[in-house]
């Protein structure tokens, strides 16, 4: 047992001893089954003290403006625990009292309305599993495929079950006017994060969500209300939602002009690039991990697309020369994470592992070369090129 693990074990044994769980508090590696009663029932659960998976928190001068990433290699299935959902805040996490928080719906409507949280919870509800991915996820890969591990390169993406009121119900209640072609949604953070969205999307599948994974949305994810815009870039999923104004054209807010626009090689920029294209990442084996030796290894990962469901994930274990289909775990839901698995017998030689996703629209995840040929290197957002992990003869896994 390495020293740091031993120290952790001793600490945990200490905790357990205090709780009357393991009176010996010894350092033996052999599991001793409890000989006394365990801990009592409790009001709100916590994970085992042995579990330490965390979001890496970067050292920032202004930690209110920044992001943490989901440790994708250490989560299972398709649901990201709310506590590990990625964060991106532009002015810190506001503390909002749900008894006082309201949603104002106004602009080009017949009846401007104010909804309390209690009002919203009375209305017909819907629950859906959707990913949320920051438009800037994998942004560093434009210049060079440099991220050391899956979390660093892909961790600004998470997937949750969201529950709330379909936005179209609220628009019908307010009486959407024919001239209303766009909406602008605003958060209650101190920078009043604001984004414009086409009304067609609002009438399609947007949710005014109050719950995530079965409980109230976490403060970092927009408590008590968040706009969920399935398949669209994370930034338009406005957190701490406080008002929606129906307008006839986009508002051209700071975060849809100076930011979240995609600079092309010719100096023009694409604007309102909402959709998140198909993407996949192998989480095992991935950067920073080490294979224990030749033989069977299950290749695992995640794929998702804003255009629909994942239809296929191809795996190459020879750097893209040949491809085979991975098994896809059901359910394969539109605009949600899909888990893939692929049995692999590693021969102990150097090679490259690659995955590519194909979605239900027929779109195939491009290579980095295809992407940069189409857009240049300065887009900053919406990078979805395939990721190559290099396997060394010693079992080490590095960025390709």
């Amino acid at each position: 047992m390495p020293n740091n693990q031993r120290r952790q074990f001793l600490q945990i044994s200490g905790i357990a001893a205090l709780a009357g769980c393991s009176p010996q508090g010894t350092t033996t590696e052999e599991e001793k089954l409890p000989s006394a009663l365990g801990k009592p029932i409790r009001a709100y659960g916590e994970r085992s003290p042995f579990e330490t998976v965390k979001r890496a928190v970067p050292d920032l001068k202004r930690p209110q403006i920044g992001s943490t990433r989901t440790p994708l290699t250490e989560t299972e299935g398709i649901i990201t625990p709310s506590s590990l959902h990625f964060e991106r805040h532009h002015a810190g996490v506001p503390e909002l009292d749900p008894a006082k928080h309201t949603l104002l719906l106004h602009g080009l409507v017949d009846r401007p309305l104010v909804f309390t949280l209690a009002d919203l919870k009375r209305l017909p509800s819907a629950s859906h599993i959707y990913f949320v991915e920051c438009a800037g996820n994998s942004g560093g890969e434009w210049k060079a495929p440099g991220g050391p591990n899956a979390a660093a390169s892909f961790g600004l993406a998470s997937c949750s079950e969201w529950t709330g009121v379909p936005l179209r119900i609220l628009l019908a209640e307010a009486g959407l006017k024919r001239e209303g072609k766009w909406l602008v949604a605003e958060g209650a953070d101190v920078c009043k994060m604001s984004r414009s969205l086409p009304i067609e999307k609002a009438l399609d599948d947007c949710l005014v969500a109050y719950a995530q994974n079965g409980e109230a949305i976490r403060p970092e994810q927009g408590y008590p209300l968040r706009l969920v815009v399935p398949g669209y870039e994370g930034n338009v999923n406005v957190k701490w939602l406080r008002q929606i104004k129906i307008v006839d054209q986009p508002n051209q807010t700071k975060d849809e002009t100076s930011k979240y626009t995609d600079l092309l090689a010719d100096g023009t920029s694409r604007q309102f690039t909402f959709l998140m294209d198909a993407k996949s990442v192998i989480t095992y084996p991935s950067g920073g991990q080490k294979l224990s030796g030749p033989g069977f290894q299950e290749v695992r990962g995640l794929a998702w697309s804003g255009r629909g469901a994942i239809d296929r994930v191809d795996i190459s274990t020879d750097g893209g020369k040949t491809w085979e289909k991975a098994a896809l775990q059901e359910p394969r839901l539109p605009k949600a994470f899909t888990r893939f698995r692929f049995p692999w017998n590693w021969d102990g030689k150097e090679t490259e592992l690659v995955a590519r996703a194909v979605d239900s629209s027929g779109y195939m995840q491009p290579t980095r070369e295809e992407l940069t040929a189409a857009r240049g290197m300065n887009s900053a957002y919406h990078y979805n090129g395939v990721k190559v992990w290099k396997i060394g003869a010693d079992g080490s896994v590095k960025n390709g």
Partner: protein
Amino acid sequence: MGKLLMALILTICVMNGQKYHVGRAATPEEIKAADQFIPPEGTGLPPGKGTAADGRDIYSRRCARCHGAQGQGDEEGPLAGGKGTLNTAKPLKTVGSFWPYATTIYDYVHRAMPFDNPGLLDANQTYAVTALILHLNGIIGDKDEMNAQTLPKVKMPNRDGFVKDNRPDTGKKKK
């Protein structure tokens, strides 16, 4: 008659889409207080005015620490410069080189700046700081007044630099 009237009202409501009658009517006052959006045509810009010269004092006290004395950037990204760099290997996206609308400066400064005290600036100060940022980029003169009429008329250098999303531009169709 009463029944008929009720039926008529109900029909109108249903046609109108209102079905649940949940939520209360918003008052004009609360809409006015919440609605600080400034779209490109300038609707909602308040009375007031300011020039770059007027903005120097408040800028040096409340903005320069993060954005640099001349908007060149410091702790935060630059506000000025970058002209002609967008199609190069090192594009510098600033208000002057990149932002398509001058109204966005007012919108954002008014609601979100200064970072440590958002909403601090009154309308005159916001117009003045907006004018100074435009002036630091050589877009308006030192004495050009920004107000609800003049600001939406400012044409930003990169106004025509934005194009529609034309993806998918990659991702060949499978057979």
